[in-house]
């Protein structure tokens, strides 16, 4: 079992003819993801990587029945691509693009209220993968393996680190969801935790958070109500100084808000084990 996506999900790639879009479409296809088409305005009617290319998302959805989309277009065009996907009827929109202006994302969030069936993952995220079935995004499949650990993270590379360690220890994953490092995101920690709680195929939960905002605290509140999942959390940025943006637009401590300490305490209070390093996570799940 899994959350958000499985082998039946029909995936559209927005920006399929770009360098990154093309590279990762091949990776997605190689693990069996059902990529049904791509978009690239002006290249409609052609074929790329064995799938039809359309000028717009609406054309693609009409012709292929795609219900999910991976967005690999450059930042100045990404917000529009998200809204285009929602308006075309896509229900799972995964935006990999980094560097989208925050005001663009605030407008996107307001726009998406008109499309309650559309779920957005990201932006500025590695996407998601249900090992052995399908992926949308850039998470390398060879470090993942099918199983029952749900993994949700604000980071890209740190997620790979943990997935790799889990797989090496024989702990497979139900679904790995990278929610992204921006301050204004689609799905939150709490949203994804709720999905994992409802998924009978998930028995364990790993949360990889970082400094900034209070999304981890909100997820902790939910878990504090009691859940059947055995959970471990890790927060990066313990050594980060106040007021400095640590790479991710969202990774910033403001005054005494958004510290690693506050997040770790929230998880401990909720009965969630907190790992000192990512290497400790595997041992704590067992």
């Amino acid at each position: 079992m899994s959350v958000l996506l499985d082998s039946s999900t029909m995936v559209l790639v927005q920006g399929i003819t770009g360098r990154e879009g093309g590279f990762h479409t091949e990776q997605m296809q190689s693990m069996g993801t059902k990529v049904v088409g791509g978009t690239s305005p002006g290249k409609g009617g052609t074929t790329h990587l064995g799938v039809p290319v359309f000028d717009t998302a609406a054309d693609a959805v009409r012709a292929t029945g795609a219900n999910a989309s991976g967005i690999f277009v450059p930042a100045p065009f990404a917000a529009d691509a998200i809204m285009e996907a929602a308006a075309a009827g896509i229900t799972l929109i995964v935006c990999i693009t980094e560097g989208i202006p925050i005001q663009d994302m605030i407008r996107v969030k307001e726009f998406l209220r008109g499309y309650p069936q559309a779920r957005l993952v990201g932006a500025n995220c590695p996407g998601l993968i249900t090992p052995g079935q399908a992926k949308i995004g850039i998470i390398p499949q060879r470090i993942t393996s099918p199983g029952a650990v749900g993994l949700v993270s604000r980071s890209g590379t740190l997620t790979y680190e943990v997935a790799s360690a889990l797989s090496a220890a024989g702990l497979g994953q139900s679904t790995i969801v990278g929610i992204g490092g921006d301050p204004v995101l689609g799905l939150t920690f709490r949203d994804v935790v709720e999905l994992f709680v409802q998924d009978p195929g998930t028995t364990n939960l790993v949360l990889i958070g970082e400094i900034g905002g209070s999304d981890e605290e909100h997820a902790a509140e939910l878990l504090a109500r009691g859940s059947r999942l055995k959970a471990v959390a890790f927060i990066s940025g313990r050594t980060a100084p106040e007021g400095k943006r640590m790479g991710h637009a969202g990774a910033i401590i403001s005054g005494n808000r958004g510290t690693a300490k506050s997040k770790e305490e929230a998880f401990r209070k909720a009965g969630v084990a907190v790992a000192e390093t990512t290497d400790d996570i595997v041992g704590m799940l067992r």
Partner: protein
Amino acid sequence: MKLLEYQAKEVLASLGIAIPPGVVARNPAEAAAAFARLGPVAVKAQVPVGGRGKAGGIKLASSEAEARRAAEQIIGMDIKGFKVPLVYCEAALDIAREIYLGFTVDRDARANILMLSAKGGMEIEQVAEESPAAIARLYPNPWRGPLDFELTQLVFDAGLGDLSRPLVSLIKKLYRAIPDYDALTAEINPLVVTKRGEVIAGDAKLEIDDNAMWRHKDLEEKYGALIEGDPYEVEAKKRGLTYVSLDGDIGIIGNGAGLCMGTLDLVQRAGGRPANFCDIGGGAKAEVVENALAVILMNPKVKGVLINVFGGITRGDEVAKGVVTARDNLKMTLPLVVRMSGTREEEGREILKRNGIEPGVSGWEAAKKIVELTRAGVT
């Protein structure tokens, strides 16, 4: 990008908001000339951080000699890591009351929030803690902006109904900083009502989204160079790197912010002290790695460098080539530990080995290794 006060005020003035008469002074003679033009002035340090008053960065001058002396004392001062490049000499206002007005991004609500309070002149965080009811709030629709009736309600909620006409008009002007300039924060505190009833921006804070600088090249060109922060951060920015200076002696390069932050935490746990945060991001090219190493090696405190790369969108072979070329080009002799895995890692490892660099095993092992090497001073 956080603008300096005078820059923020220039932007506000361009939006039609009244600001006090003021003059920028780069040296004591210019401050004296400002006094001659404006009379008694506040001489204010221009730095993109708060708390400059407490740090001695604001002085009142009631004579030409005082203005000159104030500028002498303030220019070149260090306020929270920022060297003061110039002062802003501003005519004193005849203050009747002080109001707080500000837009900022509410992360939890994933929206812009507008706050208005009759309690101006103090930190809004303090007002929020002590008397939250004194702040009126509105989440303007980001597509159309706040409407007149919404703002009228806000103004009355804040207990400022007697000023509803000028305030509604002024708030609509300030709102333009969001769609026109991608402002993340646009704050006027205090917003001064003078004894003659004029409404004037006493101070101004404007932070522009770094992700949106590509559509505000004019602001970057006009103001960017003047903000003199940490020299390594300035150099890193020129080279297009995501870099933050810290006060240790182990240089860190990672791909991805989370991994990079995690690497800092590991180094500290291993007993070392990171000199910096440097995220070379997804799709890092050879030249990016070289740029990152070059900036880190500028810092004479650095005794060794740890590179931690886990590949997703980043290709291991490109990273390895970059590391080798950078080390050779920069004639680097300090200890270097490279931990690498992910896409095309085998090719990457081969390239490193062929060039005499041994790849580390895990992030934790690599962190321990670099701490050990820098302690021993071995090259």
